[in-house]
């Protein structure tokens, strides 16, 4: 049991149930998301993208927070396993981020008439991508394993905090954003129609769990490689 605890779960979640739950929720979100009646608003049927595009944002955000937390944990006792989780969390977060931008572009093309518009929210997403791609390049340019872990953990913490300032504070204080989600909490549209809410919330949980699932697999692959290299 002790050994199993060290080997597989990254987080406090034990067992497989949450992976099945993730699959079920996402299946539900994809099937029901396309067949339910949606309210006839200005953006019409494209509102269904809410279940997928916002899910990418949720997934990215939880992954980047995970990376941030594990970088902090790494600096506490310099355990390489923590660094490994941090880098993989950022990797998964980057994939979610790219997919989020991609789904957002499809949506924007329909609703705003162009795949990319100059907007504080979109800038925040792009800056996030630049920061984490730079993080990967920083890691690549340091060959010593311990130094790499330490320096990149410092950059991750530093950049994440500044990115949060950029994404969460500045559009609220300064910019006039055409991207929704300004008045309510950043990602919880309280004014959502009840018929959509019963898909939206399960879908978000599903995406977040999927992120952790991918993260767990990636970390295990890394650990196996690590052991083989040793």
């Amino acid at each position: 049991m002790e050994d199993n605890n060290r080997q597989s779960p990254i987080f406090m979640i034990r067992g497989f149930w949450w992976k099945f739950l993730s699959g079920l929720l996402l299946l539900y979100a994809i099937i029901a998301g396309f067949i339910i009646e949606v309210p006839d608003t200005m953006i019409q049927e494209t509102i269904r993208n809410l279940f997928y595009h916002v899910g990418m944002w949720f997934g990215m955000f939880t992954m980047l927070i995970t990376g941030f937390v594990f970088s902090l944990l790494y600096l506490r006792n310099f355990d390489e396993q923590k660094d490994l989780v941090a880098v993989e969390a950022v990797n998964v977060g980057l994939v979610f981020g790219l997919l989020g931008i991609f789904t957002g572009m499809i949506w924007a093309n329909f609703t705003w008439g162009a795949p990319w518009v100059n907007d504080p929210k979109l800038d925040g997403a792009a800056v996030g991508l630049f920061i984490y791609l730079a993080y990967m390049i920083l890691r690549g340019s340091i060959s010593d394993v311990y130094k790499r872990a330490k320096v990149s953990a410092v950059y991750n913490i530093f950049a994440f905090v500044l990115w949060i300032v950029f994404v969460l504070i500045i559009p609220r204080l300064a910019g006039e954003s055409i991207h929704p989600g300004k008045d309510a909490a950043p990602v919880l549209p309280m004014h959502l129609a009840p018929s959509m809410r019963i898909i939206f919330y399960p879908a978000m949980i599903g995406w977040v769990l999927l992120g952790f699932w991918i993260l767990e697999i990636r970390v295990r692959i890394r650990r196996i490689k690590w052991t083989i290299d040793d």
Partner: protein
Amino acid sequence: MRLSKEIQALVGKEIRLELKQKYVINGILLYLVATIFVTYLAFESVITPETWNSLFWIILLFIAVNSISKSFIQENPARHIYYYTITSPQAVALSKIIYNLFLMAILSVLSFVFFVFLMGNQVVNIPLFLLALILGSLGLSSVLTMVAAIASRASYNFSLMAILSFPIVLPLLGALMTISRTALSGPDWSGMGVFIAILLIINLVVIILAYVLFPYLWKD
């Protein structure tokens, strides 16, 4: 207080070092003059307040990256070990930030003067613009000092400094450009409080982060 004494001594050391190796500061000054002159030749005929503003801050960003990137590679690594034995890492970080703040304040005022000399003055509200310059110097020096410390630990190159710093400098630059756009358009101060607050928050966050994180970069 011990920390402030150490910082004083280290800032003094930085200044003496800079005066001793004059070619570094002369190089930065020449970079400043040459960049602005090239910009003048390229943009002379199309200059509007909007382009004036954008060009000025982009040039200042490049000057800042160029002059601060040397912070941790100018001296022999062995000497860093010596500093490590006699001072606290926080003192080193804060002294570098303070020194770079002085440097950036001087460089930004010089760039402003030279820019106005060549491109003509577009600034209406000079006090507001100078405030933006001071807050900008503080923000750029603290963010870039921290990034220079990170980049100096990697196999160092200039592009690494740029790719690490540009995305995280953006919020700062955005707020600065908004303030200075207002300073260019009229004597009005209204609505500026928010942006000044944003800049102060960013500066505070960066300095706290530098204080907390620098010891990890310092030790091998």
